[in-house]
């Protein structure tokens, strides 16, 4: 199998370009998007490359439309993706909720920029992390990946498609402006380095098929349109048949299943880098581009005799509850740098569930958090215990 680009040599690609190439390698054959900084390069590469592999690129009239189009295309059996940034992510929320409710696989890339509103269109932020978790109305599970290094972006993109197909949900690939725009030298992964998962198709004839039949498991097999199954898809609460219901028991059972199908695999979905944590007294929790600076700060703290370590989330959602909780029992304090005014720190506090110093390092001006600011907070906490 080709990795799409057919290249296995060293390339010098931006994070956005890697997402596009990795998506094609993952089997993505349908992309719909709308121009928005800082994610546009993903659309540029998809427009160039998809026709080469017989796939479809369409620039829609707006963000809402591109989200609708990838859901429609996914129902025909295609692997589909859209990419956007802050304001566009806000606009996509309604149809993202539809994909959760109707259980339609797709991948949504959000290259985070400053906000709220138009904010800082060309500059870094990590302030959409809670929107990623809770942005659409109603209860739903969330899988969001926050890779920080270039080969990791490639693998995370492939994983995003695999998770979408495996769990029948929209999966969020959450880059930030620095990760999206920074170019790094990288050896293009060979297909032998990753696995591809394709959605489970029904094993029963059409007359016995129900699109949400949980007797096959919490993730029911998914037929495609035009294969003789003639099933119904709606954003209304529905029974296993796909037709609307307002029966409280069925609504409760089905919504619980839709969350359980992901959350029961939380351990398998957790993807964390533990750096210098074995004997650490101060743990830095970070993700995305900020984690790269945090790593530098940890090294520097060690040089100065402070036992610091880094827990880096590559899967940000589901949040690694157990791992953070266990770490909290071993360390004296947490430092949580993030390019927002304190969002993921709330999750660290929730899961640590201890009376201990948990302090943030926060910037929202569009620039990365310099390692010395993280270092200075580590030193402060080491000195004062807060």
């Amino acid at each position: 199998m080709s990795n799409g680009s057919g290249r296995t040599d060293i390339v010098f690609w931006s994070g956005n370009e890697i997402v596009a190439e990795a998506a094609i390698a993952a089997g993505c054959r349908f992309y719909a998007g709308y121009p928005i900084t800082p994610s546009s390069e993903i659309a540029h590469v998809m427009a160039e490359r998809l026709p080469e592999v017989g796939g479809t690129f369409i620039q829609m009239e707006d963000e809402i439309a591109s989200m609708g189009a990838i859901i429609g295309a996914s129902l025909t059996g295609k692997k589909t993706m859209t990419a956007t940034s802050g304001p566009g992510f806000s606009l996509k929320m309604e149809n993202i909720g539809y994909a959760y409710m109707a259980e339609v696989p797709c991948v949504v890339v959000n290259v985070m920029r400053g906000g709220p509103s138009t904010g800082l269109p060309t500059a870094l932020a990590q302030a959409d992390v809670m929107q990623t978790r809770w942005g659409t109305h109603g209860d739903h599970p969330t899988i969001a990946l926050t890779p920080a290094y270039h080969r990791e972006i490639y693998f995370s993109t492939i994983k995003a498609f695999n998770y979408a197909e495996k769990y029948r949900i929209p999966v969020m690939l959450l880059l930030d402006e620095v990760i999206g725009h920074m170019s790094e030298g990288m050896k293009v992964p060979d297909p032998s380095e990753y696995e591809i998962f394709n959605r489970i198709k029904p094993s029963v004839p059409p007359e016995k098929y129900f699109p949400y039949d949980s007797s096959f498991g919490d993730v029911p097999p998914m037929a495609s349109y035009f294969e003789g199954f003639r099933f119904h898809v709606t954003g209304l609460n529905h029974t296993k048949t796909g037709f609307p219901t307002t029966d409280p028991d069925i609504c409760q059972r089905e919504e619980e299943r839709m969350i359980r199908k992901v959350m029961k695999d939380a351990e398998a979905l957790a993807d964390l880098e533990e750096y210098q944590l074995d004997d650490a007294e101060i743990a830095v929790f970070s993700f995305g581009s900020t984690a790269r600076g945090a790593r530098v700060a940890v090294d520097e703290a060690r040089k100065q005799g402070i036992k610091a370590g880094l827990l880096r989330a590559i899967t940000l959602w589901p949040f690694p509850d157990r791992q953070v909780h266990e770490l909290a029992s071993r360390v004296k304090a947490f430092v949580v740098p993030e390019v927002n005014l304190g969002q993921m720190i709330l999750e660290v506090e929730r899961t640590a569930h201890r009376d201990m110093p948990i302090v943030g390092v926060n910037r929202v001006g569009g620039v990365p958090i310099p390692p010395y600011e993280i270092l200075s907070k580590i030193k402060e906490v080491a000195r004062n215990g807060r």
Partner: protein
Amino acid sequence: MAVDYLHYLRADKLPHMWCPGCGIGIVVKSMIGAIDALGWDKNETAVVSGIGCTSRAPGYMDMNTLHTTHGRALTFATGVKMAAPDKHVIVIAGDGDSSAIGGNHFIHACRRNIDITMIIVNNNIYGMTGGQFSPTTPYGAKAATTPHGNIDPAFDLGQLAIGAGATYVARGSVDNGRMLQKYLKDGMAHHGFSVIEALSNCHTQFGRRNKMSDPVVMVEWIANKVVTKAKAEKMPPEELEGKIITGELHRNDERPEYTDEYSQLIQRVQKKAGVHQ
């Protein structure tokens, strides 16, 4: 030749949820008649809708059916059609769904000329949400949100579609199901974006507030308002005042269809890539 309607319907989902006397049933009947006349295979056909009374129609149709979010049916349908260009895709939408919240998607689907048939059931009101005025509510009419009379000018959906680039545009009305069926059939057979507006009655939400709570009275109101295009051409302008013209309003068989254009693009790109290898 009788149409076997039940062949195209999910009989176990009946009776439908529409009010007795609702015009949507006539539109669905005409739609099935058109599909049957064209010999479309229900396995090869997708029916897509948004939100509203009209948008419940796909649930009753034994096809590949997609009930989406408010105003967004065309966006999902565009995804379906681009991913499966050789299949039939029909969108059925109400006036608010298609021209207010979905107005942007509507004009851009017209502009692309993608081979989707869009049926707009225009009953001049938001029925399901309780009778609020829509972009096609007549000037002066009463609605839940125009208790003092509507001051909003109404869209002419046919002219909107023509202006935006749709290549088949027709208007029928539920008082004449046979005529409506002919336009639906021609629109479905047309290779390009086709818009068929079906003037319909919501006696429950529109009629009740405008002295037409009886469905028969309201359908008669529609019947008295419509004039066929052929007849209108011979009528003096003063007699046409307040009338709505029905018929095939526009047709262009020359403009390239969007999925054809994209498949040619793929061929060009792949040929070029082949030359480079």
